[in-house]
């Protein structure tokens, strides 16, 4: 019986999982230490110009200086803010498209055709068009960013709602739920795994795109510019340490958001046994 397995000695399995987690974390730390150690040694032994490859010490120095004078924090926030706005706009558009798809078969075909066509188009390929239409502006940046997030979101939301199991739908209607109540109590939770996947993929696409777009649209796009603009300007000023510190920040944010997604997943759809697809 599954339930018996699930309840079997929870204390011990939890402890075992916990110590395994620590072992994995320790191994990762060792690997990171070897990587940075090797880098530092290679830079010192080879005597390569710090303008090409800075020392680890220099990169971390620049990183912590950026945090101390808040400039790195501001840049990071500018980038994250741009992406969050684009994701909210993208989500609103995706929801609107899905309402259209729900209301008519024309809307459904339109959503599937347009989303299927534009989803594989790398959003940064729209940079020239955005420049042409909106110049070097926040609008340009958001235009490109929304494009990078909206299609994966729209398609996943659509798949989520159209694959709600028949039995579950029947049970909802059997309870007398109709319209918005049926939507809220049955369709949305049943579609959550796909909605969640849509948000996760959007973030992944968007995070890559926002850095690239900021390289081009730069400081005009937001006060002081984001991380993309920062690494571009640091390179321009031959501050290679700063460029690498920026890259390090981009990596760290990416890792942090990934683990946040994993944490949310564990506490929701994985706990509910809905993470199979």
């Amino acid at each position: 019986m599954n339930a018996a397995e699930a309840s079997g000695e929870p204390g011990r399995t939890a402890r075992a999982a916990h110590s395994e987690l620590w072992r994995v974390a320790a191994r990762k730390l060792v690997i990171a230490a070897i990587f940075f150690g090797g880098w530092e040694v290679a830079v010192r032994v080879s005597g390569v110009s710090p303008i090409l490859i800075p020392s680890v010490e220099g990169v971390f120095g620049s990183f912590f200086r950026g945090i101390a004078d808040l400039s790195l924090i501001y840049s990071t926030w500018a980038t994250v803010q741009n992406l969050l706005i684009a994701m909210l706009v993208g989500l609103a558009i995706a929801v609107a498209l899905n309402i259209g798809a729900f209301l008519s078969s024309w809307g459904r075909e339109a959503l599937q055709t347009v989303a299927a066509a534009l989803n594989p188009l790398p959003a940064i390929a729209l940079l020239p068009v955005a420049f042409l239409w909106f110049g070097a502006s926040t609008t340009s940046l958001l235009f490109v960013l929304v494009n990078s997030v909206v299609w994966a979101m729209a398609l996943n939301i659509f798949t989520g709602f159209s694959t709600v199991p028949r039995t579950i739908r029947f049970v909802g209607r059997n309870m007398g739920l109709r319209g918005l109540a049926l939507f809220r109590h049955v369709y949305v939770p049943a579609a959550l795994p796909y909605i969640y996947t849509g948000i996760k993929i959007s973030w992944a696409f968007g995070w890559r795109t926002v850095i690239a777009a900021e390289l081009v649209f730069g400081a005009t796009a937001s006060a002081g510019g984001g991380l993309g603009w920062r690494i571009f300007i640091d390179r321009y000023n031959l501050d290679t340490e700063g460029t690498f510190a920026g890259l390090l920040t981009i990596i760290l944010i990416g890792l942090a958001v990934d683990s946040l997604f994993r944490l949310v997943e564990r506490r929701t759809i994985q706990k509910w046994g809905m993470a199979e697809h």
Partner: protein
Amino acid sequence: MNAEQLKIEDLAVRFRLGAGELLVLDHISFTVAEGERLMLLGPSGCGKSTLLKAIAGFQPASAGAIRLEGRVVSEPGPDRFVVFQEFDQLFPWKTVRANVADAVRLTRGLSRSEAARRAESVLAMVGLEAYGDFYPHTLSGGMKQRVAIARAWAIEPIILLMDEPFAALDAITRATLQQETVNIWHRARRTLIFVTHSIDEAMFLGQRIVIMGSRPGRIVEIIDNPYVDTRDKPESAALRQRIRDLLTSSAAREAAA
């Protein structure tokens, strides 16, 4: 006691099939008394599940009518609650307790605490009081069906509709759940309409058995079952044989036709 709680009057159901139509149920008429246990027994394809779905309000009637306490049934509602065969009828994002309690709150408008109390009592009734905090995917098939029965019972429908709920279970679990269904029924005597293709199940659970034939789905005969709640009584052999004959002869007639 209402002797005609559910009344089915010359019901027909047609499916659109490409350009043509398929007659799935034809000339179905019978009444069900309050508190009765009625079985719909027939081979697969005889429309017994379609008939149950029509009573539940999921399948519109093409002709005739279904009346529940005098009112024509036109859409699904919690007064006719279905226990399905599929194991995925529980909401996976809710715990066992929430599956039952929230269903009671949504359908009966009970307060949170009253709904929780009722959930505890029906879960105890099916022996799952220790599993309230579990999520459905951690339960076995038999346990999931028990929760579905508990949920349906907690909603207190006028009629409980069971659509081959034990068909996907192993034989031992199936027998246990049949016995539990009888035990639960004896506590509250709720009207029960139960679809099955198993003669044994029909004879154990049904006070009356509606024997159905196919093409189109129709009633062959309605049989009173004096051997309800018993298994394999020697004197029940004749009735068992008669039901088998009715099922095979109607099948033979179709094959000849």
